[in-house]
């Protein structure tokens, strides 16, 4: 990954406390898995930044390398990768996600 892209990703990951890389936007998700992630965060009443990877292919590919995670959506809290779609659902259901985000 070239350093400009990697810097852009680093800045984006740290641009807000909770950042969701997704396909589409929180108002108009373009993938069921991304839509579910938005729903989970909205159910927890969390403010978060949505990053539409479909608008920037360098971010779409770069974020996968950054986290060593091959799929979208990806959630970051306090600059740390938390997980993708399945982990978010599991952590939502067992209360861990709320604990982490509201800590």
């Amino acid at each position, binding site marked *: 990954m070239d350093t400009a892209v990697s810097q852009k990703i680093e800045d984006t990951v740290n641009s807000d406390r909770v950042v969701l890389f997704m396909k589409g936007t929180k108002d108009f998700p373009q993938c*069921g*898995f991304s839509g*579910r992630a938005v*729903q989970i965060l909205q159910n927890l009443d969390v403010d978060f930044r949505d990053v539409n990877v479909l608008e920037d292919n360098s971010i779409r590919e770069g974020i996968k390398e950054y986290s*060593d*995670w*091959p*799929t979208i959506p990806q959630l970051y809290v306090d600059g740390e*990768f938390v*997980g*993708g*779609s*399945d*982990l978010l*659902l*599991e952590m939502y*259901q067992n209360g861990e996600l709320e604990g982490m985000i509201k800590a």
Partner: protein
Amino acid sequence: MNVQETIEEKLRRDLDPLHLEVINESSMHNVPPGSESHFKVFVVSERFAGENRINRQRAVNRTLKEELAGPVHALSMHTLTPEEWEARDRATLASPECLGGMGK
């Protein structure tokens, strides 16, 4: 070998699962009939012992790297150790406990 069989074979080879289910969920998505683009896998393996959830999923992702870079567009997964599976009464993907809410 189709994509589903390839996924099964690679997961058996790399993760030595006690229990393995690979389900083609492509028909639940907006793709042509017969597609092999959306899968759900359920893997019970001793290899997951001592690993957190992210690392377990990474192990599956690593095994299926070529498929994820190619025909497979979405991969949903459940990863348990044999002990965790016992604690869930050996539930399978067909059991309601394991489907997880909006299971798509």
